[in-house]
C-alpha cells in the first residue's frame, strides 16, 4: 500500500486542486454543504498523508533502535537511501517546520478573535432597535425570540474558519510534496494556470469596488454578522465592499492584523530566500508577485466567494516557492536528530 499511496496522493492533490478551483469559480461555495464537501476532501487527504509520513518516521526509528547504536549506522543510512518511499517520508518531514507552526498560530489567533466577536454581537443602537422590533413581532405571535442573533455571526465565523483551514492544508501539503518529490513542478504549473484563470475571471470593471475607504477607528469590529443588515441600517456605507474593507468592519484593526500576519510571515521567508545562494532567485520573486496579486484583489475587488479559487491556487504556489533548499537524507537525518 505504501508503495502506491504516495503517487496516488500526489494525483489526488492535483485533482482536488482543480476541483476546488472550479467549484470556487462555477459553484456557490457560500453554501455550507458544498464548502463542507471541499473541506472534507482536503482534510481526508491531509490526514492520510500525515499518517503516511508518521508511519515512515516510526519505521525509521524502529530500524535505528534495532541497531542498538546511539547514532545512525552506516548500514541503515545506506539501506535508507536505497528505499525510495522511505526517503520520501523522511524528506517530507521538513514540511513540519517553525514557519508553518507560526502560520498556524496566527491563523488560530484570527479564528479565536472571530469566534469571540461572534459570541459578543455588536452593541449598535440601530441594530438593537431592529432586534427589539423583531422580538416584539415574535412575542406578538406567542413564540420565543429567534436564536439567529448569535447563530448568524457564529455560522459566518465558522465558514470563514473552514476556508482558512483549507488554505493552510493546501499550503502545507504543497510544501510536503516539494520537499519529497522532484516532480513537484507539475503541480506548480497546474497551480499557476489555475491562478491566472481565477485572476482573469475575477478582474473586470464591474467587479472593482467603488471606493477604497477604510474605517480608521474600529479596533474591535462588528463581528461577522450579516454585512447586508449593517449596510441597510446605515452602520456600514451602502456600497460594494472588498474583503479587505469587510474585514475591517467585521473584525476591526486587531482582526485584520491577525489575518494578514501569515502573509507577512511568508513574505519575510521569501525575502530571506532571495539572499540564499543555494536557491533559484526567481522563485521568491514569483512568490512575492503572487502575494501582491492576492493583496490587490483583496483590496480592490468586490467581496465574492469566487475569490476562493484565487486564494487556493495562490497559496498552493506560495507553498511551492517558499521552501528552503531541498537537501539530501544525511543532512535531514541530522536536522531530525
Amino acid at each position, binding site marked *: 500500500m505504501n508503495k502506491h499511496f504516495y503517487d496516488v496522493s500526489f494525483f489526488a492533490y492535483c485533482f482536488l486542486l482543480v476541483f476546488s478551483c472550479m467549484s470556487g469559480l462555477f459553484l456557490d461555495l457560500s453554501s455550507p454543504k458544498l464548502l463542507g464537501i471541499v473541506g472534507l476532501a482536503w*482534510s481526508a487527504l491531509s*490526514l492520510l498523508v*500525515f499518517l503516511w509520513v508518521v508511519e515512515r518516521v516510526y519505521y525509521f526509528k524502529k530500524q535505528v533502535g534495532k541497531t542498538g547504536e546511539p547514532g545512525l549506522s552506516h548500514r541503515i543510512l545506506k539501506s535508507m537511501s536505497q528505499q525510495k518511499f522511505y526517503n520520501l517520508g523522511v524528506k517530507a518531514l521538513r514540511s513540519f*517546520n517553525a514557519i508553518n507552526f507560526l502560520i498556524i498560530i496566527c491563523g488560530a489567533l484570527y479564528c479565536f478573535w472571530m469566534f469571540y466577536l461572534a459570541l459578543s454581537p455588536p452593541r449598535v443602537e440601530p441594530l438593537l432597535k431592529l432586534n427589539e422590533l423583531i422580538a416584539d413581532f415574535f412575542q406578538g405571535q406567542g413564540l420565543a425570540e429567534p436564536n*439567529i442573533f448569535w447563530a448568524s455571526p457564529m455560522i459566518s465565523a465558522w465558514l470563514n474558519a*473552514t476556508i482558512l483551514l483549507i488554505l493552510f492544508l493546501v499550503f502545507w501539503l504543497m510544501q510536503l510534496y516539494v520537499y519529497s518529490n522532484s516532480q513537484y513542478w507539475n503541480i506548480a504549473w497546474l497551480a499557476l494556470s489555475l491562478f491566472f484563470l481565477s485572476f482573469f475571471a475575477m478582474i473586470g470593471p464591474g467587479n472593482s469596488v467603488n471606493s477604497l475607504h477604510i474605517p480608521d477607528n474600529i479596533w474591535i469590529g462588528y463581528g461577522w454578522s450579516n454585512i447586508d443588515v449593517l449596510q441597510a441600517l446605515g452602520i456600514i456605507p451602502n456600497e460594494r465592499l472588498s474583503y479587505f474593507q469587510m474585514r475591517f468592519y467585521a473584525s476591526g484593526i486587531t482582526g485584520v492584523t491577525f489575518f494578514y500576519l501569515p502573509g507577512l510571515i511568508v513574505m519575510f521567508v521569501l525575502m530571506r530566500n532571495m539572499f540564499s545562494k543555494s536557491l533559484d532567485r526567481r522563485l521568491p520573486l514569483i512568490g512575492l508577485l503572487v502575494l501582491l496579486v492576492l493583496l490587490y484583489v483583496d483590496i480592490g475587488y468586490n467581496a465574492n466567494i469566487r475569490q476562493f479559487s484565487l486564494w487556493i491556487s495562490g497559496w498552493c504556489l506560495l507553498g511551492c516557492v517558499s521552501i528552503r533548499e531541498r537537501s539530501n537524507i544525511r543532512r535531514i537525518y541530522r536536522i531530525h536528530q
Partner: protein
Amino acid sequence: MKQMASVSTFVTIILLLLFSLCQIFLQLPPQKAALHESVASRAFYTSQNNDLSHQERNSAAQKAKSHFIHALANNPYEAGLWIRLASVHKTLGSENSQDNDSLVDAVRVARILRSDIQPNLDRILIQINSENRNDITHE
C-alpha cells in the same frame, strides 16, 4: 519545534474534518429557513389561486404564514420574507388587532431592511393605520 509543528498540523486537520462533517450533516438555521420558505411560497401561491374556494385559499394562506414565521425564526434579517409575510397577513385580512400589530411590525422590519422600497412599504403602513382607525371609530 518539529514535534510542535506536526502536532499543530494534526490538530488543524482534525478541526477541518470536524467542521466539514458538521457542515455536511447538521442542518444550520439558514438551511432550515430555506426549507420553510419553499413550503411557505408554495402555500402562498396556492392561496392566490382564484379557482379554489375561499376556505381552501384561507387555509393555504394560514399554512404559508406559519411557515414564513418559522423561516423568519431561523433567518430574521431576510427582508424578502418579511415582505411576503406582510402580504400573507393582508390576504388573510384579519380583524384581530393583535394580528394587525404583527402586520405593522413585519412591515416596519421590512422597511428598515429594504430602504430601496420604503415608499411602497410606507403606503402599506398608512393603509393599515387608516384601517385600524376606521375599526376604532366603528367600535
